[in-house]
């Protein structure tokens, strides 16, 4: 047997590990250059003091120690968590409900699908601008509506209120996200087993029982995926917060990304900002792993 014949696959073509490596090398190279290296370089920067230009000064873990002392890091992390939970409540769950409603035979399904998905097509700049106008205390529609229905005492300066600024921004962000969730869930629902629904109906299950015990188990993989992506997206949000409130009033809507941006580009603490970004990366990874593991454990039981 020749080497070539030993290497022939079932299709009869000659292959080798080297050839396979050559094919994946560009992808590995791109990932290493644009994915891995920036993380490694960020970690290197995090061990230095650096104002963004000129030489770096090695300081070891000083930036990480500083991070542990800064109360704003905890506040920003908390705000990100609230933001994530808010998006899940105001986008993922409504998206799931809408997808169930639309998957059922219904006239105008395509039209409604398009309408609900439309906000997803808008850029974050446009969304931030439009919602800033809606929440504007002088001419915004939200306050005008509240006044019109006799709820004048709720017509506040939303984006300048320390309690309501973050929920207002979450609402704006959720508005662009629920349509995306809806489309994903619709695709998942179309792969569910209709016989299971028939069986449940025969057994006398009501709508909620069918949803909890038939629908959700069948789409749990997709649900997990959407929640994980939502969490990852929520922890790296920047533009809508920056455009609508810049982290204000005070630091009430400060999130990790806006905090990192300010520390790097306004305060010249690039090393410290890199340390906080490493923390953010670790946290997001950890959350994602935990959720996937919990789901897998739930599937086993």
């Amino acid at each position, binding site marked *: 047997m020749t080497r070539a014949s030993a290497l022939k696959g079932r299709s009869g073509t000659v292959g080798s590990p080297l050839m396979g490596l050559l094919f994946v090398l560009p992808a590995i190279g791109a990932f290493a250059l644009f994915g891995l290296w920036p993380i490694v370089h960020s970690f290197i920067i995090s061990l230095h003091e650096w104002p963004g230009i000129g030489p770096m000064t090695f300081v070891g873990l000083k930036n990480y120690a500083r991070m542990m002392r800064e109360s704003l890091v905890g506040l920003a992390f908390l705000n990100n968590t609230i933001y994530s939970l808010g998006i899940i409540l105001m986008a993922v769950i409504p998206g799931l409900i809408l997808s169930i409603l639309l998957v059922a035979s219904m006239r105008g399904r395509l039209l409604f699908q398009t309408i609900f998905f439309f906000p997803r097509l808008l850029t974050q700049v446009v969304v931030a601008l439009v919602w800033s106008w809606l929440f504007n*205390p002088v001419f915004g529609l939200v306050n005008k509506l509240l006044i019109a229905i006799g709820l004048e005492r709720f017509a506040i300066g939303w984006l300048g209120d320390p309690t309501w600024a973050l929920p207002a921004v979450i609402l704006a962000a959720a508005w662009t996200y629920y349509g995306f969730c809806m489309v994903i869930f619709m695709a998942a629902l179309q792969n569910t087993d209709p016989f299971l629904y028939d069986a449940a109906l025969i057994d006398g299950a009501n709508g909620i029982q069918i949803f909890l015990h038939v629908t959700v188990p069948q789409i749990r993989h997709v649900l997990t995926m959407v929640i994980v992506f939502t969490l990852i997206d929520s922890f790296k949000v920047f533009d809508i917060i920056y455009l609508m409130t810049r982290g204000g009033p005070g630091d009430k809507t400060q999130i990790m990304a806006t905090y990192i941006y300010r520390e790097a580009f306004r305060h010249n603490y690039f090393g410290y900002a890199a340390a906080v970004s490493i923390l953010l990366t670790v946290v997001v990874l950890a959350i994602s792993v935990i959720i996937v593991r919990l789901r897998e454990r739930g599937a086993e039981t």
Partner: protein
Amino acid sequence: MYKRLLLVVVAILAVSALVFAGGQKTKEAQVVLKVWDQFLETDDAQAGSLKAIEMMGANFMAKYPGVKVERTPMAVEEMTNAFKPALAAGKGPDIAYSEMGVGFVGPILKAGYLMDLTPHWKERGWNDKLYSMAKDIPTLAGVTFGIGHELEFVPIYYNRNILAKVGLPTQPKTMAELEAGADKLLAAGYIPLGWGGKDWWYQSNFTTSMIWAFVDKDKIDAAMYRGASWKIPGVQEAIDTAFVKWAKKNFYIPNPTAIAANEVDMMFVQQKAATHVTGSWDINLYVTQVKDFDVGAMLFPPARSGKPFNTVSFCGSGYIVNSAASNPKVAIDYLDYVMASEEAAKIWIEVGNKLPPYKNKIPGLQVNEYLQDTLDVLAGQEVTPGLSMTCPPEVMSFLQKSAAMVLTNQITPAQWVEEFERLWAKGRAEGMTRDTFKF
């Protein structure tokens, strides 16, 4: 057929080569001066400045035929983010029109990326032609690295018609008089102080104006330039007056922490707010938007009788030169024309509605009425550079958010002073103040 095709291809290639060669020849003969500035088409406040800089660019190129001025306009924030990496990568402009704060330029200057213009100030006669503030602001540790521009002031602009209707003086002499006037305006159904605390510059500028009104200038100078404490009489009172007392009295546009510059402008133009607590950079707004009433300027009155008026001033931005500029002489020639020539100064004022640092008298100058009014009220009065010109970067961030924090009871005025002092001391320790910066 193939021969014809070949002939066509050869012809196209030949023509392209000729055009390219011609272009190359033109390029080689021309010096390209790359300038980054902030004069955007999309920014209404800069409309006049854009026209002015384009005129000056054309004039400069007419005077220097071998030079092409290539402008790249960008927003201030974009410039702040892009400038350092561009310089570090060797792709920076020859000249940039940027903010002059020590937090931004300090690291760039330390890293050796900015040209020392000190000898040029002398050689080109800028020391005689330009106001000293245009040199003082862009000077750190004895090195003058730029030319400050857009001399700006923070008076209180007001609706002359409304004040006349309510019977108020056009220049209150003390804070108590201003407050009494505000009470009358409120009773007459107007918003006394057109101010909003959402945008960062509104917060920092108004805070500075109030501190300047309450604190003696010598104590301000000692704290800003010589390391003295900011825990001085007047600072806490200024914060308390502006963001507790006046807020409770409803002197501002309702929900001030949610009110941005656009809304403030709108309330003033629509004659709902009697005053416009902004700076002279907004004069363009009055020129373009105010049709139904007359606008005047008054100074922030001092907190007590006998204390001199002290108005916040800025060099809005300024020109700095890349130490690796491709043609340093051309870069300096450009600055000399744009900043220190009578012709350019006239264009800045008449077309740009901006005050350049050029101090010589300009014959036949036609000054916009609002700008003239501002200059008239300021004539002979004390001006002091605002905190944003001199403070460390973390203090700047604090100034940009702390008015809203006091307004929403997140901190008290006493806590404001403590934090301000702490951050200023931190900035000094890090060499980010004018008195501690060193190479």
